[in-house]
């Protein structure tokens, strides 16, 4: 088990190295010149050349890559071209709202989606099942910002239950935080709930057809015990997998939701950086989110063995 964890952690290294390489190449090979952005429209060719030299953009590509990696390994994410501040500091200042939003979304999603999926599978082909499936197809189909604006229109403008936009720090104003975070979390949760509910239902349907479910029923076990004790645990591995891979959707959703609700998180930071073509920030953000994604999925992989005793490493 311990050896397996070590091996898995070591396995992250090549994945992250390839991520770094892909990100680097994609950004460098697409047309566009960071020096031109930094210099502004009125710069002369000589100025441009000087900036290029100072940024190391005239070095061969592989040298640029290794220099960047070396910096990364020293914990230096680079410096913003626009604001000239340290990227890790920029991220540090903006990451809290994003983490709070993400955690709240995941909790809401799992608490809603898993029971929905279980009941839909249990009552296969009933109106509850069709209801859950309809919701889940809708959740996939309506873009997250449309959902956001619909929520704002209904809950903030018509009903005036919560403020329209903005963010409050939970340590300063807990009530205010929840008031402002609930709509973005629900918005973000929609697609995640759709995803998890769908997978829970599919996985449960498969497990409910297994022989050991029939055995449990033949023992006279009550139906809720059959569902939650026997079936759900066996159905859990694919559900956890989808929570992990769906994390990518969550990251995308955060970017949009923060724009819609005007939340000062790293999603907004990234969009602003991309629109301003602020290369070091873009690189750092993509690498960071990829790293988080890999880490979350690593933890989920390792936790499979807690659920299923047949998985031993």
């Amino acid at each position: 088990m311990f050896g397996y964890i070590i091996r898995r952690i070591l396995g992250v290294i090549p994945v992250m190295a390839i991520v770094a390489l892909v990100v680097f190449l994609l950004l460098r090979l697409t047309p566009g010149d960071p020096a031109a952005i930094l210099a502004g429209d009125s710069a002369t060719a000589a100025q441009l050349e000087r900036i290029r030299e100072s940024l190391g953009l005239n070095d061969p590509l592989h040298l640029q890559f290794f220099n960047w990696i070396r910096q990364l390994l020293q914990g230096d994410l680079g410096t913003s071209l626009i604001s000239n501040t340290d990227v890790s500091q920029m991220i540090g200042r903006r990451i809290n709202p994003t983490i709070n939003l993400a955690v709240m979304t995941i909790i809401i999603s799992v608490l809603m989606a898993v029971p929905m999926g279980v009941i839909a599978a249990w009552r296969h082909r009933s109106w509850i099942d069709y209801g859950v499936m309809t919701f889940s197809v809708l959740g996939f189909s309506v873009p997250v910002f449309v959902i956001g604006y619909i929520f704002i229109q209904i809950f903030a403008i018509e009903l005036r239950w919560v403020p329209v936009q903005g963010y409050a720090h939970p340590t300063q104003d807990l009530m205010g935080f929840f008031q402002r975070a609930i709509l973005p979390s629900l918005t973000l949760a929609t697609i995640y709930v759709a995803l998890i509910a769908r997978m829970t239902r599919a996985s449960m349907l498969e497990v409910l057809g297994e022989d050991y479910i029939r055995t449990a029923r033949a023992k006279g076990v009550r139906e809720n015990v059959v569902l939650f004790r026997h079936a759900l645990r066996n159905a859990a591995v694919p559900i956890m997998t989808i929570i992990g891979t769906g994390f990518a959707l969550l990251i995308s959703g955060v970017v949009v939701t923060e724009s819609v609700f005007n939340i000062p998180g790293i999603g907004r930071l990234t969009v602003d950086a991309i629109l301003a073509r602020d290369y070091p920030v873009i690189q750092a953000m993509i690498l960071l989110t990829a790293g988080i994604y890999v880490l979350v999925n690593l933890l989920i992989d390792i936790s499979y063995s807690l659920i299923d005793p047949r998985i031993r490493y």
Partner: protein
Amino acid sequence: MQFKSRNFDRAETILDICNLSVCLPDQPDIAPVLDGINLTIRAGETACLVGESGSGKSVTSLAVMGLLPKGSLTVSAGEIRLDDTDLLTLSPSDMRKVRARRIAMIFQEPMTALNPVMRVGEQIEEVLTTHEKALSSKVRRGRVLDIMAQVHLPEVERIYGSYPHQLSGGQRQRIMIAMALVLEPKLLIADEPTTALDVTTQGQILSLIAELQERHGTAVLFVTHDMGVVAEIADTVHVMQYGCIVEHAPVERLLRQPQEEYTRKLLSAVPSLVPRPTRPAMLDDNVLEVRNMEKVYAQGGFLVRKAGTLAATGVDLSIARGRTLGIVGESGSGKSTVARCILRLVDPTSGEIRVAGTEIARLSRRALRPHRKHFQIVFQDPFRSLNPRWTVSRSLTEGPVNFGITRRDALSRAGELMELVGLPRDALARYPHQFSGGQRQRIAIARAVAMRPDVLVADEAVSALDVSVQAQVIELLDDIQEKLGIAILFITHDLRVAAQICDDVVVMQRGVVVEYGPAGEVLSQPRHDYTRSLIEAAPGRLWDFANFREIRTA
């Protein structure tokens, strides 16, 4: 042959099924799945429900448990009386109380019937927590350990905390039996409980069920397709066909004087354990020779090297043209590994394989391809051995076309082959799903024979078939061998089948050949203890089913 001959005339009736019909809901034009079943079981009696696949025997047992799959099957008429209560009128929660307490059930496949993520002890204990809520946890555990000891599990404390995948097939089925009997129900339903087990384990489980039945006076409804098992354990036998019980009688009367045509047919198809008369050996013209072959499955991954699993070692065998060699053994004996090595579907670790004079064990995949026409295979599962997207004619011409025969010639030969295996020529244009299991197996044989091979490997080729179909396919193989002079390597776990088709037999155990000789000798005067135990474990071995009498030793 000693049959059970107890008299149940005065025993109380436990289960009384009256005129039970089961059908598909909202499809009145389809024939019912069960059509007016009548069946009684008395205390202490073992009633066997026997029939081929699709006869409705499993549906009957699930109907009694109230476990028919919702929405796809419903009871349309009749009563199921257990001690004078009609189970069909009970509410779902009352029916739950009946299960495990008054009727319990064990299933065919003990691996899938146990919850893989729960400890087996907890799974037995769950019966008690569900039905005997007043018990303290200590008493509960005591009772679980007691019933585990009663089903002769070793080290009950350790096994209590084990997961199903850590136990052997036989142990898992013992757990199932313990789970079923912990509340001492009056009726035990056993649905093919030994079918997935090896023959020696099967014998142990059958005698365990008999022992516990004796001790607790349980009535048993035993569903099986195996006449050998019936002869071994039944008091009364009910023969099913197309959802009806066609005949029922005490076991000895049924086996000696079957009244119905279908019963006679079913019994006649059971292959005899007595080897068929030996065929004269032809010239010593070996088309397949295997010398000192070994196969080790490597384990471990990229970085870690572990000792591999030894699947087969020191295997020597040879087959002459027109002869049949059987490899028999239980699961894990390595018999299929040998077959796959000879086909080079896996690569043997060491040793020689000589087919039609060519040494093939070391040839590269590419160099091997021209030689592939000399040896062909027929697989066990007729539903997976034909490409479902291909017409029969495409499957039958694939091989010949690979070896440079024109499509037109291959097609006309495919037509001849269809006739050879007893199928109409015009069936060539059809797809596999339009055929029954037995017909598909015929097509698979035709595909192999299309290559005019020297050696045909049949890997459990008749094991998935009903007994009557099995007999026909065996006959077909015999017929083809006679016409074409092919050598057949026949892999089987079933000694009865081996006795009927093989000239020589290899007995394998844990990857090693323990006995090798003419079928007549090996199966009637086994020299090795393992062979002897295999033969002794074969159920109904003293009965000659096809002739409705004891086996007469000549």
